[in-house]
């Protein structure tokens, strides 16, 4: 390997070291100012309330209201009714964003359940009291339900049973006749004896009843049906809708003031068979299963009628840039967090029966869907009726302005410094952020080191509004980075001429510095030749002593025409 190739490898290695270390420094700087901005987020950006929700028959039109704390014990005012309409209450905490920036925490918490072990098992449920579990054995393609029975007052297992479920049935042994599931999406219900799953290969829903020992086949999507149920980020499950801790969607049913007890009573499930109660418990979702599609559309699967009908969609929250169409449907990868809460009306079929879902008649009333924007600056909630039509939409605003904009205008200095930090990234990464921001999942984007999908320029890249806005804002956002890079490139070129780099090397260093900015400049300073220059006898400029010819005038060291004669004429 010649010296030039070795030097090139050294330059690349040095460049990578500089890039990683500088990116870490810039990340910490960005995170500091980002945390400051998050801390300055108005309270309005953390909550959305829609009241009435519109999901209870007979309620007036739903609307977003100002967030206010509704006490459970404060009586209604003299002119206020003694009932409260149902409401959707959505809240999130600020840490949702900062937590995304801590990859170690994210990886550990996301990996516990479900977990893939060395035996290729994916665990879906674990009962800590019974030490039992449900898992998928990827090798056999069977769902395994493990039961453990303990002696009273003795933790040692005295009986352990496993049941294996496939598309064709359940058995205590793993038999080929059971068939196999291929890449299923499994529900995570409260009843570990009844689970539902969607098999991506056969495109069919299945219901496994371990208690009853049966597997029933459900609805199957037709070949040409382009709907595609998906797994969410942390758990492969149809009903685990929330993909990020820190977002909480609650549907609170109607309440009536009980003057005797001095409290607001929720209109929950009644122990009598009279009338319907309202619940958002997913115990009852075995009748109606919300199914999220990869396009962001939500369907409701009626297990009794075996039908899959539209029920709603993930709403796209607002971002920093104007012109967002409010009817935009967000894909799961477009939002940092989402949560879907279906609402049902239930009626006990016979008095005195237990609380098993089989003892109730269930009606689907609609659903509440909340999404947090990718950057974590705004939140949107939409309520859908049972037919999937939008009833109401609520957004986080502060005095009528989107919280995305409010956040930056409330702390302009922090926002500006954050912008400048982003512009210390290499221009080529800025362009990549603009072009490729969509391809990164939102949460990992908060801990990106090189390409920044959640940066200002990344936000602009995802902006689906007017092309004009993109063309105007893009040069503004990338401008400081380009100006810095060009200035550094000129310095590099000048120095490269002085130290005697070849014209090819000068050209590549100039291009590289324009593309990679500050890291390239630092790399150049670390790897440039460190020979002290000497004066060329021919041209009088500084030349490198380790080169046979002057890199400026091309003259050699020995020049006969310049050798002094061996005589002098002196005064």
């Amino acid at each position, binding site marked *: 390997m010649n010296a030039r190739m*070795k*030097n090139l*490898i*050294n330059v*690349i*290695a*040095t460049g*990578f*070291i500089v890039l*990683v*270390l500088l990116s*870490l*420094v810039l*990340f*910490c700087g960005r995170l500091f100012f980002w945390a400051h901005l998050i801390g300055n987020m108005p309270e309005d950006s953390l909550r959305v309330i829609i009241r009435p929700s519109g999901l209870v028959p007979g309620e007036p039109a739903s609307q977003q209201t100002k967030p206010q704390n509704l006490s459970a014990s404060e009586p209604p005012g003299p002119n206020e009714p003694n009932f409260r309409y149902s409401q959707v209450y959505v809240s999130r905490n600020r840490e949702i964003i900062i937590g995304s*920036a*801590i*990859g*170690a*925490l*994210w*990886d*550990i918490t996301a*990996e*516990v*359940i479900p*977990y*893939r*072990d*060395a*035996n290729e098992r994916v*665990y879906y449920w*674990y009962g*800590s009291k019974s*030490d039992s*579990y449900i898992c998928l054995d990827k090798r056999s393609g069977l769902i395994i339900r493990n039961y453990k029975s303990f002696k009273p007052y003795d933790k040692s297992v005295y009986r352990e049973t496993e049941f294996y479920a496939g598309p064709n049935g359940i058995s205590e042994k793993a038999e080929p006749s059971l068939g196999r599931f291929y890449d299923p999406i499994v529900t995570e219900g409260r009843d570990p004896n009844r689970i539902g799953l969607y098999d991506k290969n056969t495109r069919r829903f299945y219901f496994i009843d371990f208690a009853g020992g049966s597997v029933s086949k459900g609805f199957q999507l037709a070949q040409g049906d382009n709907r595609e149920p998906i797994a969410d980020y942390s758990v492969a499950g149809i009903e685990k809708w929330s993909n990020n801790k820190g977002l909480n969607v609650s549907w609170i049913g109607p309440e009536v003031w009980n003057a005797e007890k001095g409290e607001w009573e929720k209109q929950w499930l009644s122990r009598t068979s009279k009338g319907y109660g309202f619940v958002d418990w997913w115990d009852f979702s075995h009748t109606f299963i919300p199914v999220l599609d990869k396009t962001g559309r939500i369907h409701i699967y009626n297990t009794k009628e075996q039908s899959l009908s539209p029920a709603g969609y993930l709403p796209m929250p607002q971002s920093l840039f104007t012109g967002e169409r409010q009817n935009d449907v967000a894909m799961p990868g477009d939002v940092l967090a989402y949560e879907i809460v279906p609402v049902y009306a239930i009626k006990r079929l016979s008095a005195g029966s237990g609380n098993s879902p089989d003892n109730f008649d269930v009606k689907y009333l609609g659903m509440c869907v909340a999404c947090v924007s990718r950057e974590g600056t705004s939140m949107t909630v939409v309520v859908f009726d049972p037919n999937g039509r939008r009833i109401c939409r609520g957004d986080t605003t502060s005095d009528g302005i989107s919280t995305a904009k409010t956040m930056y205008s409330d702390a302009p200095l922090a926002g500006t410094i954050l912008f400048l930090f982003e512009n210390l990234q290499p221009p080529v990464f800025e362009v990549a952020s603009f072009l490729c921001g969509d391809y990164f999942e939102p949460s990992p984007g908060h*801990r990106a*080191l090189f390409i920044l999908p959640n940066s200002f320029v990344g936000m602009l890249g995802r902006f689906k509004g007017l092309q004009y806005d993109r063309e105007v804002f893009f040069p503004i956002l990338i401008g400081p980075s380009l100006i810095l890079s060009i200035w550094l490139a000129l310095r590099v070129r000048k120095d490269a001429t002085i130290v005697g780099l070849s014209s090819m090397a000068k050209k590549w260093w100039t291009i590289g510095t324009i593309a990679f900015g500050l890291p390239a400049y630092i790399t150049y300073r670390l790897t440039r030749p460190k020979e002290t220059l000497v004066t060329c006898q021919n041209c009088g400029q500084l030349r490198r002593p380790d080169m046979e010819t002057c890199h400026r005038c091309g003259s050699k060291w020995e020049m006969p025409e310049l050798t002094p004669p061996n005589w002098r004429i002196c005064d």
Partner: protein
Amino acid sequence: MFTLIIREIEDNRVFFIAAVLLAVVFGVLFVYEQFYGEKYESVIIPFGFAISIPMAMAFCAMGATQMYWDKTKKISALLATLAVNRGQIFTARVIAGFLLVLIGFIPIAGAIISAVSKLNVSFLPHHGLYYEILIPSLLLGFACYCIGLQAGWTSNRVTAILGALGLNVILIPVIIIKGFGLEIYAILIFLIAACLIRAWYKFSTAAF
């Protein structure tokens, strides 16, 4: 080569003795906890995590010390006149450094294994999670050592100390930020390779 490696270990015996002592202490505590851990509160988890940052600093310090002493005591100037070449000297140096990282990592590995095994899902075989956390942590240890090699190649003690400290402080958060996925593997492996390439280039082209 063996002579050179032994020489490196003897020259830096303070690091090795400390690492071996810590490893032995942790080994004893680990075994103790396996038998009596339920009765008493775990010691190795908090202790292991408490020493992880100083241990990373020590790895970096080892690399910086090796290069700094080479410059000031002209060790390679002597060795290079014997029947060894620069490649062997450098390789022995790196092998000794990696050995220190492996030994010094034992207490940290013990803490990680203990912590993972105490997760409230006792039935889960955690093999995968062990590897997912242990391997990037070990790679980070190597990376800290390699960063020390960069900072130590100077005859100015202040530059060596501050450089090593500064670079290490910048590097350590990478595992907290990026977590334990494939990205951290890629970043750390390439970083280690780049540091070794650069250190080798400087060592092989320098005047002794």
